[in-house]
């Protein structure tokens, strides 16, 4: 059975070009880039080349890129750097819909005595600038707001927020893990001080990420040890994965405009077809302002895990905000924050596409999904007429 992989916000396939590029550094060139001998030392140059490619995708300077092990490390590093650099400031502002890498790190800091404000979002997942303005004060060490949401794809007004924070001289970090490689980002114009990205979301392997730190930003390292990354991130460089991330960024930069068009066309086809073919469905999030590859659809009266496992029988991979898929009993914090009724959260499915998806694959999903939903609804005690009043 052919796998139809529509879970690219979870992770992506390694691009063949990326694998090819990194391979020699897993086999022949295993030296330590910090070594004095040529065998190891020559790798230093490869790392700097990769840094230039990552910087190019973001229109940044190479020295503004720090390689990390993942998006989570980048996020943790950015926030920790802010609180270490400004020890007198004890206030952090973020949103209710962040990735756990930011959300749980902030919760951790709040147990250590920091005051954390979690900004609400409206039903489309949008922030209100007034809410942010109300919360900023002299005690604010950093504002961390994601570029685009992983579950619903909503893109935040990072430009506008950045301009406000720049005027007030407040450090601004954005978790752009879901945005980098999917939509163009220009740090030369975008007023952010720090920006996180993750390799495996853009067809590089897992275990590599990067943090952009604008030149002139106060920085305090999170991993302390050797002098690697100019003393900003200790630990022997993951040469192969760094080379891979460089290549992945190069590929993304080359094709990004075409991919935006391609992915949004496929996504829109999938979404509009499912909405037409399956009654009682709704789109979650902001349809006018979101990642081109993401759609989050709620199918009423049925539960997400059941849908996923039926899809699994056809080799189709997607994900759900339902409580039953989370390992805990908590339904998606993002869908709750945007006020999706519990009934619809349980039946929410996220499809996230990549450049490797084909129109045939999308057609296949459009073909099988309506019968899966119909079938599960036949099993369900609820339906348009059967639903209790308070849930309608």
């Amino acid at each position, binding site marked *: 059975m052919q796998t139809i992989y529509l879970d690219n916000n979870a992770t992506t396939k390694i691009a063949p070009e990326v694998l090819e590029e990194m391979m020699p550094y897993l086999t022949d060139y295993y030296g330590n880039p910090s070594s004095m001998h040529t065998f190891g030392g020559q790798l230093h140059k490869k790392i700097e080349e990769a840094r230039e490619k990552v910087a190019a995708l973001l229109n940044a300077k190479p020295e503004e890129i720090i390689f990390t092990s993942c998006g989570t490390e980048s996020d943790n590093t950015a926030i920790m750097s802010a609180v270490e650099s400004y020890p007198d400031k004890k206030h952090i502002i973020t949103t209710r819909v962040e990735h756990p890498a930011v959300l749980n790190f902030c919760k951790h800091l709040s147990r250590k005595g920091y005051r954390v404000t979690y900004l609400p979002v409206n039903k489309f997942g949008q922030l209100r600038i007034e809410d942010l303005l109300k919360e900023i004060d002299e005690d604010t060490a950093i504002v961390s707001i994601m570029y685009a949401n992983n579950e619903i794809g909503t893109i935040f007004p990072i430009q506008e927020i950045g301009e406000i924070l720049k005027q007030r001289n407040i450090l601004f970090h954005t978790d752009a893990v879901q945005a980098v490689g999917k939509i163009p980002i220009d740090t030369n114009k975008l007023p952010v001080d720090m920006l996180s990205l993750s390799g495996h979301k853009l067809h590089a392997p897992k275990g590599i990420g990067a943090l952009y730190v604008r030149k002139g930003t106060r920085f305090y390292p999170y991993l302390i040890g050797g002098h690697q990354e100019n003393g900003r991130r200790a630990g022997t460089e993951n040469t192969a994965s760094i080379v891979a991330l460089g290549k992945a960024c190069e590929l993304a930069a080359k094709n990004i405009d075409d991919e935006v068009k391609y992915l949004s066309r496929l996504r829109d086809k999938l979404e509009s077809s499912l909405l037409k073919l399956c009654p009682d469905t709704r789109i979650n999030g902001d349809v006018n302002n979101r990642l081109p590859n993401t759609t989050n659809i709620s199918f009423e009266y*049925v539960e997400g895990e059941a849908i996923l496992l039926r899809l699994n029988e056809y080799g189709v991979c997607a994900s759900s905000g339902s409580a039953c898929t989370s390992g805990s009993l908590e339904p998606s914090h993002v869908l709750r924050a945007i006020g999706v009724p519990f009934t619809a959260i*349980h039946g929410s499915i996220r499809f996230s596409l990549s450049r490797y998806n084909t129109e045939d694959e999308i057609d296949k999903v459009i073909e099988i999904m309506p019968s899966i939903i119909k079938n599960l609804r036949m099993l369900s*005690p609820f339906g348009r007429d059967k639903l209790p009043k308070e849930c309608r």
Partner: protein
Amino acid sequence: MWDYTEKVKDFFLNPKNIGEVENPDAIGEVGSIVCGDALRLTLKIDKETNRILDAKFQTFGCASAIASSSALTELVKGKTIEEALKITNKDIADFLGGLPKEKMHCSVMGMEALEAAIANYKGIPVKVEEEGRVVCKCFNVTEEKIRKVAIENHLTTVEEITDYTKAGGGCGECQAEIEEILKDIWSVKAPEKPSKPKKLTNLQKIALIQEVINREIRPGLQADGGDVEIIDIEGNKVIIALRGMCTGCMMAGVTISSIQEKLRELVAEDIVVEAQ
């Protein structure tokens, strides 16, 4: 991804007895769409013999909820209502070859639907949940239900209660209260542990020790890249050697004492475990 048995997968993909029996003699409805799972069970019952002739279900929920509901209908068909009332959530889980522990609440839902249906058949008004004191407000779980499930399934921790009833799994505010309820239950009556054999010959003891170590200890250690080997058994003293990642592990002391605890629990109370 959940580790479902083949039988769970089969009962989810090809559920038996879906829908509603015609002119049902008993209806049992539990759960709600808000909580994330709900089950409507309908039964056809022979009034002369009190035998369940047919059973059908409708379920909103995950794969294990659907499989548990379907398993329930298979279990009750042909039984008298007295026999059916003896079915516990464990029977439903066992019928399916087991459920992941986080999904045990699906089997509890099946048992409750059956109880509700039989009460309905007997003309007993459905117990309104509000009658009992609600402990978990997120999932509307009463103290009565927590006590019942804890005693029937020998549950001793808050996490287990959450796996079986969902209570404590939402905002988490009631976890301390669940802890108190558990303390109250088990301070009176210790949970029945799987009983260990009374008297063992030396050979039986050695065989049992090997079995327990192979079954209960090694898979966990191997998952972390370690292992354990029995070097010798002298009377109540078990001499072991830790292997692989366990060698020189900072937690080796903890590992050894947990092996000892397990052997004391399942073989004999006087066992002492020593590293070679």
